[in-house]
């Protein structure tokens, strides 16, 4: 399983990379971690004529707290998130998620932003981005734009990124009062069959606002507005968690594949949302 031929570019500045993308357009794939792209290339399911390796571009590996948001540059690896005290302090839910992503070797290379660009609906980062109100920065020669995670993912492995754009950063809101994550996978490190992320704003003991996102339930990460609505104003208790699960279950129409039928995924949605909520309740 060897990849098809391609032209290789290793720009050392962002401008250089953008110029290349501007001229190669849809025939090019940016390469950051490569942990998702290269397997697809080896399987010849992806055959980009150009590879734009961004690993030598400076200034893309920033990771820091800034004005209520955690800013993560395009070359920040999963492992960097795992080791970061800034992440542990400001976004502790992420600290619980990263060890579940693949294995150490994958985490040393794979990037947060790369995971978002790849847009696998069963991956952890896209659903985290939805729940944590992420903003994604896309740049092209001469301009840039910021897109909320809401509008970023269109369908399986597809986003609104244009061929001549590069994702340079994602930022996550860090001012939630309680967050929880629950994932069910066949084996340690696998993609989730279903994962749920819950990010809550509290007022006293009740839920002022809720963001509940799912991985694996659809062709893209999914916000479950019905469940969010059902728990707004409710106390932060185990009973509310159960209710969130029940509503989420009825609200989704999951896809099916060999790892799970639609009905089973529906069962898992209920379980995952309930358990993610309970982790938020318990402050983990």
């Amino acid at each position, binding site marked *: *399983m060897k990849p098809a031929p391609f032209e290789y570019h290793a720009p050392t500045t962002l401008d250089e990379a953008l110029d290349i993308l501007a001229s190669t357009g849809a025939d090019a794939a940016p390469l950051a971690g490569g942990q998702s792209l290269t397997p697809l290339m080896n*399987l010849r399911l992806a055959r980009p004529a150009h590879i734009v390796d961004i690993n030598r571009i400076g200034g893309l590996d920033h990771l820091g707290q800034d004005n209520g948001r955690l800013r993560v540059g395009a070359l920040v690896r999963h492992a960097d998130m795992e080791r970061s005290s800034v992440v542990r302090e400001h976004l502790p839910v992420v600290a619980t998620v990263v060890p579940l992503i693949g294995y150490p070797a994958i985490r040393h290379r794979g990037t947060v932003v790369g995971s978002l660009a790849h847009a696998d609906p069963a991956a952890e980062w896209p659903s985290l981005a939805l729940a944590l109100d992420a903003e994604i920065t896309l740049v092209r020669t001469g301009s840039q734009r910021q897109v909320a995670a809401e509008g970023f993912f269109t369908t399986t492995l597809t986003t609104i990124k244009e061929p001549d754009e590069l994702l340079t950063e994602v930022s996550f809101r860090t001012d939630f009062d309680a967050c929880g994550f629950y994932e069910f996978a066949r084996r340690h490190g696998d993609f989730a069959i279903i994962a749920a992320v819950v990010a809550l704003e509290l007022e006293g003991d009740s839920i002022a606002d809720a963001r509940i996102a799912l991985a694996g339930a659809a062709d893209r990460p999914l916000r479950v507005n019905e469940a969010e609505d059902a728990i707004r104003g409710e106390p932060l208790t185990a009973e509310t968690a159960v209710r969130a699960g029940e509503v989420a279950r009825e609200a989704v129409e999951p896809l099916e594949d060999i790892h799970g039928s639609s009905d089973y995924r529906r069962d*898992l949605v209920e379980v995952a949302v309930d358990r993610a909520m309970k982790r938020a309740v318990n402050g983990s």
Partner: protein
Amino acid sequence: MTTEAQAPRFFGARVKRVEDPRFLIGGGRFVDDVDMTGMLHACFVRSVEARARITSVDVAEAEKMPGVVKVFTGHDFSGSEVRCVSAYEGFQVSGYPALAEVEAKFNGEAVAMVVAEDPYQAEDAAGRVFVDYEPLPPVIDAEKALLDDSPLVHDGWKGNAFVERRYESPGFDDAKQSAKHSVSGRFVMARHSGIPLETRAAIGDYDKGTRMLTLWTTTQIPYLIRTGLADAIGFPENRIRVISPDVGGGFGVKAQLYPEEMACSLASIDLGRPVKWVEDRREHLLTAHHAREHTHEATLYFDDEGIVEALEAKIVVNMGPYSVFPWTATMDTGMAMGILPGPYKIKHYSVRGYPVATNKAPYGAYRGVSRPAACFTIERLMDQVARHRGLDPAEVRRRNYVTGDDYPYRSAGGLEYDSGSLVESQDLLLEQVDYSGLRRWQQEEREKGRLIGIGLGAYTEQTAHATKEFVQRGVPIVFGYETSTLRLDPNGKLVINSSIHNHGQGLETTLGQMAADALGIDIADVRVEYGDTSQAAYGSGTFASRSAVLAGGAARRASEQLRDQLARVAGHNLEASPEDIEFESGRVFVAGTPDRGYDFDQLCRMVYHRPELVPEGQPPILEATVAYDAPPGTGTFTNATQIAVVEVDPGTGGIEILRYAIVEDCGPMINPMVVEGQIFGGIAQGIGSAIYEELVYDDDGHLLTTTFMDYMLPGTTEVPHIEVFHLETPSPFTVGGIKGMGEGGAIAPGAVIAGAVEDALAPMGPVVVDQIPLTPERVRGYVDSARREASR
């Protein structure tokens, strides 16, 4: 000889393996590590359909691509095929071609072969070979394939069964009619396979000058490959050399003559250059032979005490389209029929077996070979008997086991159980895990709402079966013996040349352990060679848990012959009787007078360089070849009992294994460390069978699980710590009383974990777990149905 009086120094010891250093420093030599001048690389074009007429193969564009030397099609290799014919009456014959020419019969079957200067270029060109397929109705489900209206996998066949086998013991009907109770079930084990970490690889290397064909290949059976290849491609066998160097796992999957081995040989003969093929993982999942897909319908008939009197069963195995070499398509079915009664004294037995041709990938041997499915069925039924009679599963088994007094025991399946410790093994296991304490703990946890289950599984495993057994099986090659040639050199160092192969079993070490003690030498002075057919004498290879017994037995016997040869020389020169010569710690001396003797190496040199000191009539060389067929040829039976404690998550259907333990009895152990390694490895694969592994096809026969993202292998976080305890009940027949045991660990986990899950859900409601793997979705389904049953 009095060497038996000393405690053996190496037999039974936890000796570090002599083969390890090269693997530890990255120095192992696997087929893909082999490089040759002028070597070309092959990439196969494979059928995208499960069944299709091949109406054209257009190679014109591919042949012009960079680096491409030639593209072969089925037409080029026409006539080269494997035909493995069983002696069973009515067996229907199939031919497994090097490249499919007329019809592709499974998704992935090789249709063309690109040969290029490098593997990347070969793969590029393979994508530019255009094959026209005319799809035909595929036959995918084995039970449907047996129906009268099913399409035929092979034109001209009567129905799709390779053969139909039946057996009924005398008096069965009466036993069935008079039985008080019965339990029945339909038990399904999904298709999966050994999936070694190293994929297959082959290098065909034909030398036009010497007219010698050398085939480097990842195989467990080098001699059988040599003969099979000679037959299949019509090449003189004495001009074929098969070399199987280091191999990264076999498990039975690499014990078969494959089309790719034939194709690489034929391509090299045509081109006069070495042609290498390294299988990729997708190809492996598609085409390296599959295993395990059994559907059993079975009924146990029993009395009020839970004593089983009769077993009735129908066995259907989904074999893919071809009868593979050397097993034939009857192997799994026949073995399942034989072992289904398991470790129990079931007097009456009626069974029908159907190996069925389908358009899934071909099917071969995988660790345990039908016994995992047979164990699953009988153990699940025994648990049902237990429930029916209100007995503990351990008690029901105890009442039915073959016991010490019964041996040798001829089972209802026609197997001769030579020895065993079934009751003792179970007792020891339950004692070691504190079974009653475990049940009490389970009850406490149940009261807290946890779904904790305990599952038990026992088996007796036929190992080292030889001539008599394989004659009964109607196979064209009776795997009756293994051969060891031992040679001492003038420096007193020993080389053991063996017909087996070693790919993880530790045979490079254990064969040395078998031979060193008889000669009183150190294992460091023994070197074991295997895997090159130009070196050793003929044998079958490594499979069926036979190598330690047969090759080890041969090595031991040959070492005894060498001892005799040396003793005669020593006695001749020391004026003593050979019977009075002792061999200990590198000295050869007259019993009682250690000063009257030789250093071992000194004596060996004497034989070679001082032939005038060798007794007349004795050749002045130190060499012995023994082909050993362990009597009585029907195998020696290992047994084990396994237990698992699991917790089921009722929300996700996930299974966590909290504890896993086994008591195993394989008789005296050559190297306990090696034995334990085999046990742990077998159990890990069994856990894969029980929970994770399945080769999934769609209704049109396309394989869906083509990467490790979809085919799940258990890792360090899925396989728990495993506790192992040993009993040693020697075989009355084999050299040293040793038994085989390599497959055993893999036999029971399916049954054990299914039993544990069933037990875990029992408080919720009655559930019968009759299908594996226990994917979380399947378990969640059992949870839901238990709840539904309970609320009625």
